[in-house]
């Protein structure tokens, strides 16, 4: 089916040249070596990979073994993203993760042994009952592990999850907002002290190890998504594949592109997205870049907005860029909403 979608997409767009690949969404590390080899063959058949610099597999600890890792390397993967979320077994079991710290450690070791020299670890903070000390321990653990890249997300409670139910029932409580922010500040401070550079609201990397793939989303570059629920931005059009595996396969069985056009971006849409994704990057948005993309300056497109946000202490302007301030990192949505057109 994946192959079918690649075939249909390549009929539409031709053989696309890829800079980065990210195999994610769920747990692709569950794939068997044979599956992985098929996946590799599809990718190599339908896409031009001469400019490929970053090829990441997402994985969950406990689902990896040496053979799978070796196969990933063989089909060209050079980066591995691992979901740890927390270094506390208690927290991990509370959120229903199947792994614990020990299984993670084991997997991490295998990954390194397989030759992956670019590893990213995903963390979450602000879990129910979590303390600032717990988070500092998480961070201490990370800095001893020294992955090349770290993503740390403030916990989002998704609707319909067990966690939401437990919170509603009062079985668990979230840390107060100011404690949650202190957790974030701890990440910022401790990772910086350990030599990491924060380059996005929730992302840190050792120098030169920023994710090229993620930056495409924030830098307004085209991307193509294959598989159920995958999204694409191609030539100013956003597509979303159906979430349901059945609906997705049905389209393909009928030789149709499963992508549903979500929007044909207008200039206003484009500008809105350009601003709120670009400002997620700590570097911010280049005034010149905006001018050359839209043929007008930010101040012309958004009269008075930048100045008022600077006044509110949420935005800073320096060296030809505007970027979020420390306070702006906490209140990003307040900034982004001002750039909605």
């Amino acid at each position, binding site marked *: 089916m994946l192959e079918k979608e690649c075939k249909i997409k390549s009929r539409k767009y031709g053989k696309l040249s890829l800079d980065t690949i990210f195999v994610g969404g769920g747990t692709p590390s569950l794939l068997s070596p044979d599956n992985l080899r098929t996946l590799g063959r599809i990718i190599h058949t339908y896409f031009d990979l001469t400019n490929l610099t970053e090829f990441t597999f997402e994985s969950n600890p406990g689902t990896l073994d040496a053979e799978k890792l070796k196969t990933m390397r063989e089909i060209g993967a050079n980066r591995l993203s691992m979901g740890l979320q927390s270094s506390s077994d208690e927290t991990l079991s509370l959120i229903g993760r199947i792994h614990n710290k020990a299984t993670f450690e084991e997997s991490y070791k295998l990954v390194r042994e397989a030759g992956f020299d670019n590893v990213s670890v995903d963390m979450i903070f602000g879990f129910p009952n979590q303390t600032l000390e717990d988070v500092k321990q998480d961070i201490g653990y990370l800095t001893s592990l020294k992955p090349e890249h770290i993503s740390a997300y*403030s916990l989002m409670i998704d609707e319909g999850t067990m966690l939401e139910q437990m919170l509603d029932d009062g079985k668990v409580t979230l840390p107060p907002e100011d404690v949650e922010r202190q957790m974030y500040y701890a990440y910022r401070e401790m990772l910086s002290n350990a030599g990491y550079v924060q380059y996005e*609201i929730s992302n840190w990397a050792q120098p030169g190890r920023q994710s090229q793939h993620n930056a495409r989303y924030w830098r307004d570059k085209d991307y193509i998504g294959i598989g159920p629920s995958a999204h694409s931005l191609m030539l100013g059009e956003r597509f979303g594949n159906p979430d349901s595996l059945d609906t997705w396969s049905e389209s393909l069985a009928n030789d149709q592109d499963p992508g549903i056009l979500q929007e044909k971006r207008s200039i206003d849409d484009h500008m809105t997205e350009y601003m709120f994704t670009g400002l997620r990057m700590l570097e911010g948005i280049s005034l010149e870049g905006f001018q050359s993309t839209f043929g007008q300056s930010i101040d012309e497109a958004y009269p008075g907005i930048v100045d008022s946000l600077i006044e509110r202490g949420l935005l800073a302007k320096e060296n030809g860029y505007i970027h979020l301030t420390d306070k702006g990192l906490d209140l990003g949505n307040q900034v982004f909403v001002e750039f909605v057109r």
Partner: protein
Amino acid sequence: MSERQKHIRNFCIIAHIDHGKSTLADRLIEATGVLTAREMENQVLDNMELEKERGITIKAQSVRMVYKHTDGEEYILNLIDTPGHVDFSYEVSRSLAACEGAILVVDSAQGVEAQTLANVYLAIDNDLEILPVLNKVDLPSADPEAARTEIEDVIGIDASMAPCISAKNKINIPEVFDRIIDTLPAPSGDENAPLKGLVFDSYYDTYKGVIVHTSIKDGSVKAGDTIRFMNSGSTYQITELGYFKPGGYVPTKELLAGEVGYIIASIKNVRDITVGDTITLDSNPASEPLPGYHDVHPMVYSGIYPLDGSEYDELKEAMEKLQLNDAAFHFEPETSAALGFGFRCGFLGLLHMEIIQERLEREYNMDIITTAPSVIYKVHKTDGTVIDLDNPSNLPPTTEIEFMEEPIVSASIMTPKEYVGNIMQLVQERRGVYLDMKYLDVTRVILEYEIPLNEIIYDFFDSLKSRTKGYASFDYDLKGYAQSDLVKLDFYMNGEIVDALSFIVFRDNAYPRARKLAERLKDVIPRQQFEVPIQAYIGGKIIARETVRAYRKDVTAKCYGGDITRKKKLLEKQKEGKKRMRQFGSVEIPQEAFMEILKID
């Protein structure tokens, strides 16, 4: 009386909400074939969206029907619709003065209600003949004989001949027609006397200008005539006149004494037409105008401001148009330190205020902020002068005030007897003074009170409904003014006064109300970048205080390819929400905050 006038009946329908007035009107219209079945929409007369939704009549509408009586003759029946709520007794009086008779519709399961009573008395005062009709006789709970006895006992009119009908299920409708023709008087104007036409309503039409609704009491008028409005003195040449049909107009050559119709005369200036004025011919004027309507003064005042200050002119235009169709609505420009330029508006009551507000929002697409409603207080100053205060912000400093008076109303509340305790408690909370209680029959009583008007302009009606499961009905009349210990309550946000939230309150109620309101404000004002203290003051003294905590965090942690569209939609929604807020210094206050003032209970 001319032979022609003998074949005309001008009448209105009086009923309590839900007793079936609009349904009966529909049946009459349907039976006379004014509309084809296809054109017949339910409840033809209530043609404002808002009226249909609330099931009440706000704007009087009229329709002309032709009915062939059992005597073989054709009769012209002019039905003039009347509003049904206590706030609109003025509109009722206008409609009544245009008629000779009134149909009183009583729900035979529920009997006479307080509001009906008030309107019936108004009709009797206007010398109208009353024709009682017992509706909904086919309901299992109907007791037409009890309702008949009640009409006779409570209102004191003969109901022995009252038709028993079901407007909904078309039972006995012809009997209503027969009774209209047989018992309601025909008009008896002098066709040859100088013209006297009563202006009982007016509408604004974008193409034709002002359309005047009139009941011709004496004389005649035709297209081309120059008419004079006797009170305003302005003159116009008639371009078109005619009769009403549901939702429209039928032009004719002339209107004669006893007829009801409309006049169009290229009237552009809405202020030239006052309802209650008398139309006469410029060339042969009547010696004196018709006895006027009661001059109606607004009972409740509040400020209305555009949410976006740049929409002041649009708001003004919308209000001018509304005023044309609603003579009871008053407005004049005012300025608020917090809200900028807006209008001080006068209303008949709180429902009237809500309706104007909703019409501005729905029909004119305005985003508005309404300030705390106020009644007119009489402020006796130490220098001996008295001011009528309709805006709490204009209250002079306490050192200049000798004493204040507030308006008091006589209220009658009709209720099944099991709710008497609840009502007594409610009225006591609202400083009501008990006067009397009468049994209407074994199950129902009527309670008489005196209550300060400022206690009922807020949520009294809602509270009454909720404490009596909707069974109590309520009516009031302004009785006079009484001295009272009143104070002004001010609210400060982030250290700045928001004058639009100021209101005047009885001193003993000030503390609990200030505390409650501060709490409510805390809940409706969204968290902002900074901590926002809310303080309630009397004079220089803080009596309540709450704090809207600053938000520490408002950021989405994850935003990758698949999240962008969803995230953008969320931001767009957030932006829409911001539009519904008004910026006060550094604080954003949503529209709802101003509505919280209205809720006491």
